[in-house]
């Protein structure tokens, strides 16, 4: 007999459907006419398990320890023509009540009460039941032999060794085996106390009678039911044919409903005429297949083994389809006896139970206590965006519950920092707090009553500014960065950056600042686009040759990002106009000028206006970049108090420059400008970064403020702008050639 596979159906039943199930069980011809066992109002789990029969003569079931649990392997053989015991149903105990073991249809049988089976291993439960049944049967003159290990067996199938083995066995063990084996699962796991974890009851299947129960199914339960289609026992050793894999061509033993999507399963005969039992499985039933594991080879010599291997191969070839639709079991069982039914019932936790349990595992804090915490804990808001937008605790960090696990580590690297998690009412934050504790955060509390209570008690709240959907989409990659986020992006949109020069350095800097969403970009440049510029000045193009650079750049930037307002200053930066331009209000100056007079002019003005300057310069393969932040770090005159003589200061126009070099240095300038606008990171204040493109190396040197600096020193000697006209080929200060 092939029987190393079995399918099991599982569905979750609500209380009402649980009742239906009970009613089905109480069918007079049914599996178990049982009552008195309370059905919990919570969800129940129904496990119709289908296995095949055991051979009482075979050796004891192996119990294989597996990761701390015991597994009872499935057995191989069953006797198709034997009269069998009926299914035994073990109902769940509930709240300490007794379990009930039913053996309906057995002569003299009936329900057996078992005390507190919840904490008892199924074997002993079954064993007790078996013994009790046996006693009952004996007392009522019933067929005791059915409980005995020795059963009718075709003598030609038994070898000598088996006969000897049988002789050695104790009846009790054999009975156990008989009961345990055909439960139709791969294994039953027991926890340390012997209980099947997560399951309140274990089935106790037994031999089927000749009559059959029909398990009717609709579409939702097709999987298990097809798998239960049965073949007559006389096909026992026939290798499967392909056509048999299709349940549609299989012949149910009942024969009554050949076209109905249904299957037969063994029922307990009442000793009278076979009567199908109907076990309803509603459409929403969830099917879970379990496979039986081959435990031992067939008896019957090499040919039988070979057949089995062939069958296994066939099964492998059918592969996932079988596993998917549950037909594997059907095929495997097509030659086996109808199998017993087993039902497991399990009470499920409700949301309320889970929340209560979670709250016992975390720390909660009342709004008043949270507001009074001395060091000002970090508030973590785990509500959804729309809730956050309606107001939040000032300074709170917002990570919606759904992305908490993935985002919190980046946003909250310090796991020891006190954090108060809150949501609207304290439920989501409780779960969030537990999650954070599991992630290793040490000081997590959930705000009892949530934001609702916080607000009701008059503690401060804040209405956040937020980006509209289009901006959220455009700047989504910024928003995803914890250091930027939506708040940072709003800062950038409010930021005002003045670019001195729209040439090599100004091109990439302006493009990246515009793309980043810096709200206002001022550009100072008096030149027009020249063909020789296009080798590196990527904000301009061939189509804008001859145009003013500020207008060419403005068109490119606005095409890139219409959120950016470009303020063009088509003029040379001079001592006369620099104050006016700076008075328009700039947060950061990006210095991309190409001559010393402008550098010094920008430096002196920035010190006096206290505007940080991101300084960059390029020559051939070399670039320099630093940040001059007035009075917090050195200024340009701290480094070079005065410009070199003109003959010692060649420009790019004279010395040349690698086209990509301003791309690198200008991009670094944009990066520093963004950091300054956002107020994040360590800027290059006090550090000069030297880039050598030929070596592909960066070298950093330290810069110090010079107390004797003529501009930012303790006794400044330069107090008004100096026009270094001698540097310029044209009158005034030229910016960006």
């Amino acid at each position, binding site marked *: 007999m092939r029987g190393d596979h079995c399918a099991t159906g599982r569905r979750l039943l609500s209380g009402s459907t649980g009742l239906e199930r009970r009613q089905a069980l109480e069918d007079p011809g049914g599996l178990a006419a049982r009552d008195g066992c309370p059905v919990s109002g919570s969800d129940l789990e129904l496990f119709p398990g289908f296995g095949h029969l055991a051979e009482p003569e075979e050796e004891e079931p192996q119990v294989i320890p597996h990761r701390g649990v015991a597994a009872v392997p499935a057995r191989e053989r069953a006797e198709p023509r034997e009269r069998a015991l009926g299914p035994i149903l073990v109902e769940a105990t509930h709240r300490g009540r007794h379990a009930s073991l039913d053996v309906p249809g057995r002569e003299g049988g009936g329900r057996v009460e078992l005390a507190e089976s919840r904490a008892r291993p199924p074997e002993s439960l079954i064993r007790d039941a078996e013994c009790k049944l046996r006693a009952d049967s004996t007392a009522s003159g019933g067929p005791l032999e059915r409980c005995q290990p020795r059963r009718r067996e075709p003598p030609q199938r038994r070898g000598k060794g088996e006969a000897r083995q049988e002789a050695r066995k104790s009846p009790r063990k054999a009975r156990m085996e008989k009961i345990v084996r055909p439960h139709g699962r791969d294994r039953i796991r027991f926890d340390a106390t012997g209980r099947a974890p997560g399951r309140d009851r274990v089935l106790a299947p037994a031999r089927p009678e000749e009559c059959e129960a029909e398990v009717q199914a609709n579409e939702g339960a097709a999987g298990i039911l097809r798998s239960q289609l049965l073949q007559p026992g006389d096909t026992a050793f026939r290798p499967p044919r392909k056509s048999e894999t299709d349940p549609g061509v299989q012949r149910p033993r009942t024969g009554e409903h050949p076209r109905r999507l249904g299957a037969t399963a063994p029922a307990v005969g009442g000793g009278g005429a076979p009567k199908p039992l109907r076990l309803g499985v509603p459409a929403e039933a969830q099917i879970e297949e379990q496979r039986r594991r081959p435990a031992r080879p067939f008896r019957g010599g090499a040919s039988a083994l070979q057949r089995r291997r062939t069958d296994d191969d066939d099964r492998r070839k059918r592969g996932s389809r079988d596993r998917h639709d549950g037909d594997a079991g059907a095929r495997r069982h097509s030659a086996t006896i109808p199998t017993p039914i087993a039902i497991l019932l399990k009470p499920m936790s409700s949301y309320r139970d889970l929340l209560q349990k979670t709250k016992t595992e975390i720390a909660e804090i009342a709004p008043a206590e949270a507001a009074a915490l001395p060091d000002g804990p970090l508030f973590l808001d785990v509500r959804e965006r729309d809730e956050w937008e309606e107001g939040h605790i000032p300074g709170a960090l917002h990570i919606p519950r759904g992305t908490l696990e993935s985002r919190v580590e980046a946003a909250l690297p310090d796991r020891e920092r006190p954090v108060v998690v809150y949501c609207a009412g304290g439920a989501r934050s409780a779960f969030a707090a537990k999650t954070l504790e599991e992630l290793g955060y040490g000081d997590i509390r959930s705000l009892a009553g949530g934001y609702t209570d916080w607000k009701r008690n008059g503690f401060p709240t804040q209405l956040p500014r937020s980006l509209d959907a289009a901006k959220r989409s455009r700047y989504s990659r910024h928003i995803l960065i914890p250091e930027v986020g939506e708040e940072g992006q709003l800062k950038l949109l409010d930021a005002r950056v003045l670019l001195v020069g729209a040439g090599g350095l100004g091109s990439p800097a302006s493009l990246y600042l515009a793309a980043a969403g810096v709200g206002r970009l001022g550009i100072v440049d008096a030149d027009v686009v020249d063909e020789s510029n296009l080798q590196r000045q990527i904000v301009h193009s061939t189509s804008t040759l001859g145009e003013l650079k500020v207008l060419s750049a403005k068109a490119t930037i606005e095409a890139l990002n219409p959120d950016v307002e470009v303020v063009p200053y088509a003029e040379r930066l001079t001592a006369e106009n620099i104050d006016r331009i700076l008075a328009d209000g700039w947060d950061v100056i990006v210095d*991309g000028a190409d001559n010393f007079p402008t550098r010094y002019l920008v430096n002196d003005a920035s010190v006096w206006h206290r505007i940080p300057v991101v300084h960059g310069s390029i020559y*051939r393969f070399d670039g320099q970049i630093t940040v001059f932040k007035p009075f917090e770090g050195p200024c340009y005159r701290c*480094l*070079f108090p005065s410009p070199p003589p003109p003959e010692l200061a060649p420009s790019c126009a004279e010395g040349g420059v690698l086209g990509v070099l301003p791309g690198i240095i200008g991009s670094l300038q944009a990066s520093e400008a963004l950091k300054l606008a956002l107020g994040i990171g360590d800027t290059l204040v006090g550090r000069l970064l030297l880039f050598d493109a030929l070596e592909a190396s960066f070298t950093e040197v330290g810069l110090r403020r010079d107390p004797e600096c003529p501009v930012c020193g303790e006794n400044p000697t330069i107090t008004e702008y100096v026009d270094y006209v001698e540097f310029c080929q044209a009158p005034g200060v030229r910016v960006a050639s």
Partner: protein
Amino acid sequence: MTAVRIPPTLRTETGGERQVEAEGVTVRELLEDLSTRYPALRDRIWEDGEVASFVNVYLGGEDVRTLDGLATAVEAGQTLILLPAMAGGA
């Protein structure tokens, strides 16, 4: 011998060399030795017996003005960087 990094604006004076070597116990000695080896450099870095104000000298990543100036002792393995002001940006 101490390695001396030559900035791009002074490489003409070193025959295109990006890094040269010179000897000296102090920065002053080192720069004197460098000026002896590459005489064209002398006019570019010296101004009235001192290093020109538009040239910065870094030893071990620090401006020598923040150390002991030209008297700063040169230790083995250190690199001297000459860094004149560079204005190009376009």
